């Protein structure tokens, strides 16, 4: 699009103070100058050439401003990756994620080293609780010093909960994929309990606080599934393929509750 510009005469008159222009012309030129870079450039040339008084004034303002501007820190060109990462998880999450990946690797080692002891897969046993711990960490008062501020912002609530949960899953699921692939466990066998547990944590978290819900569920899991499995060295029904529809149902229920109660995540209570 070819832009139209103010006539050179108008700009020169304007630079001289606009005494020879009618009021509507001054007004229009000024409005145009505010928006048009090309004409502003012409104006500054006109001032430099024809109106030394104004040029001197501008120079003196500049020389007064420059030392003060020099003190002001210039903006860095790029932000650090850790700052950008904070949009996906709380800035205090990095050690937790390292721990989760570490535990996954450990379970993998255990599985590979003790394949003879029974039919129990550690990946299967730990898959549901790993993301739950990550989700808990991203909502913990103790771990997130800015929890009260975070609870008060417009982005708080379901949106931020889901965003942080997604990023936890984004780290945990690939790690478990590697583990599952190495030990030969079917993906759906651990992925479904994993997602079901995460959604249940969030659903309960809306009532009692996400951290409490996570630790409660992790304890229930340890008592009801992990302990009997280790005692009998047999995979419990919950983790066999027959249990999958139940996990699917739990996932659907949990997701439904989270969506229905989405207002609950925007208050301080969700951080307990």
């Amino acid at each position, binding site marked *: *699009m070819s832009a139209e510009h103010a006539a050179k005469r108008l700009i020169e008159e304007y630079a001289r103070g606009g005494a020879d222009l009618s009021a509507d012309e001054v007004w229009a030129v000024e409005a145009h100058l505010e928006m048009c870079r090309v004409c502003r450039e012409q104006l500054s040339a006109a001032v430099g050439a024809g109106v030394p008084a104004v040029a001197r004034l501008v120079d003196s303002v500049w020389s007064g401003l420059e030392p003060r501007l020099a003190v002001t820190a210039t903006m860095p060109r790029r932000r650090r990756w850790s700052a950008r990462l904070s949009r996906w998880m709380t800035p205090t999450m990095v050690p937790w994620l390292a721990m989760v990946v570490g535990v996954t690797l450990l379970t993998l080692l255990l599985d590979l080293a003790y394949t003879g002891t029974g039919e129990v897969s550690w990946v299967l046993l730990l898959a549901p609780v790993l993301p739950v711990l990550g989700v808990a960490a991203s909502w913990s008062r103790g771990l997130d010093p800015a929890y009260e501020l975070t609870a*008060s*912002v417009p982005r708080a609530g379901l949106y931020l909960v889901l965003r942080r949960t997604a990023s936890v899953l984004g780290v945990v699921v690939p790690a478990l994929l590697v583990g599952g692939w190495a030990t030969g466990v079917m993906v759906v066998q651990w992925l479904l309990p994993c997602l079901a547990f995460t959604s249940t944590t969030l659903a309960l978290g809306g009532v009692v606080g996400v951290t409490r819900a996570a630790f409660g569920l992790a304890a229930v899991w340890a008592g009801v599934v992990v302990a009997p499995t280790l005692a009998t060295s047999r995979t419990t029904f919950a983790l066999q393929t027959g249990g999958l529809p139940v996990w699917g149902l739990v996932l659907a229920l949990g997701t439904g509750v989270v969506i229905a109660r989405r207002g609950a995540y925007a208050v*301080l209570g969700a951080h307990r």
Partner: protein
Amino acid sequence: MTLSKNTGKEHRMASAVSAADIAPRAYAWEIQATGLKVRVGRNRMAVDGLDLSLGIGVHGLLGPNGAGKTTLIRALATVLRPTEGGLELLGESVGGMGEHRAVRRRIGYLPQEFGYYKRFTVREFVEYMAWLKEVPKASIPAAVQRAVERVGLADRADERMKALSGGMVRRVGIAQAIVNDPTILLLDEPTVGLDPAQRLRFRELLQELGTDTCVLVSTHLVEDVAAACTDVVLFAEGRLVFKGPPDELASAGGPEHVGDSPLERGYSALLLNPEQGRGTW
């Protein structure tokens, strides 16, 4: 006249004022509470039947420790849900469930315990808060710079927060509260940790903000109120004891009341005899 249409890019400069900015106000008070009750814990009513209307200006929230100031400010920041009664912010009721995103975008909040991330620089932290407050992406860098300059931290903007003194951290807290140009600004004890010179500067900033913002400052420093506030809200045991200009508070006290300044004497007079104070509003 050879005036013109411009290319799109140049045009955007002209639209610095959005439709929301020039829309007429549809409410009488920025903050309006009617019979507001907020429960803390199982059975303690920290705010117990409060009727309060606040408009544009700087309102000092005074009261003894445990009076419920922090709970009231939390309820106004919409992080605590009112147990009973009505609370309207910017004309929208914030009583029930819901995320209140539109209202929250126009609130600035500095909690009493201002938590921050030590490894962030000042700019990164305020940028992060601006993002959380849904400031449009394109205007975040400028908004952050402006907020940081207003609290006088422009020269320290790229330092890590762990290198800052307590007073500077507090100023970062104020910067993050004003980064979204809020209409309601809630500051819970903002002057804690500021030295006298910084406090003077802060009062100036308050007066500046109070020209177009509803600022509620909780404090227990009576002199802050005298210097910067257009209005005093005296709060005790979850109830409003007094609301009015600082002069009126000062005139409530006599020489027989404890205190070093007229305001302090007025403060102790009203708290000693709440019934008398309640009549004045």
